[in-house]
């Protein structure tokens, strides 16, 4: 996937915008706890920001910059998601039971910690990686 054109404007806008998208995707991911958002949509947005990098720069360059095997990342995400379900088993509750509590942390104030976030991390990784795998597979075929 080598691109002949070297569009200056495109490259410079991407450098800023892709990180804005990445930041917004992380915001969406955490907003998903009580508001619209969550692992799925956050993962898709992360994938789109990385994809923008792939579109703008060379595939080889990005592969060097992010030496991640996305297929392994999918299964890592799945394992995290499935694995979180087992937390409840140790206390004797059904599979996938979620727990949350409020803690008071220095500087931040009252803060909620929930096991559902861990599950969502798994979904986030799985969705982001599988979206990238799908698109890169189709695009990489000559």
């Amino acid at each position, binding site marked *: 996937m080598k691109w002949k054109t070297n569009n200056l404007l495109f490259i410079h806008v991407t450098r800023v915008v892709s990180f804005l998208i990445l930041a917004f995707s992380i915001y969406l991911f955490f907003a998903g706890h*009580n*508001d*619209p958002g969550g692992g*799925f949509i956050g993962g898709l947005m992360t994938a789109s920001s990385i994809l923008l990098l792939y579109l703008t720069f060379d595939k080889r360059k990005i592969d060097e910059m992010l030496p991640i095997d996305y297929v392994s990342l999918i299964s890592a995400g799945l394992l995290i998601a499935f694995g979180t379900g087992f937390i409840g088993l140790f206390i004797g509750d059904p599979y996938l039971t979620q727990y949350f509590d409020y803690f008071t942390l220095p500087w931040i104030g009252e803060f909620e910690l929930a096991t559902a976030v861990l599950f969502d991390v798994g979904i986030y990784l799985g969705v982001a990686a*599988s979206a990238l795998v*799908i698109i890169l*597979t*189709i695009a990489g075929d000559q």
Partner: protein
Amino acid sequence: MELLMSVVVGVFFMVGTYLLMTRSLIRVVIGINLLSHATHLLLLTMAGLKTGAPPLLNRGETEFSDPLPQALILTAIVISFGITAFTLVLAYRTYKVNKTDDLDQLRGSHDE
């Protein structure tokens, strides 16, 4: 509103089924996609439209609409997303290997 949605769903099903029965691979894929949209709309419509505010807590609302169909549709969209991606790749590979996208020529004979 329900009536309008029913008509829309009907049209989607009609177009989707028509495309599914055409001879080109890519049209079949588009047909599958349209059918999945039709079913998602149908799920939403069958549960009743606009029965209350969005199902979000701490917004000062008292009447909520049913969140279950939305959760179902989200799941169904995720699944159809995966299936569509796979179908596209499969259609592309089929086209590459068999060197045609005409389903009539992909029918195959008995002596294989």
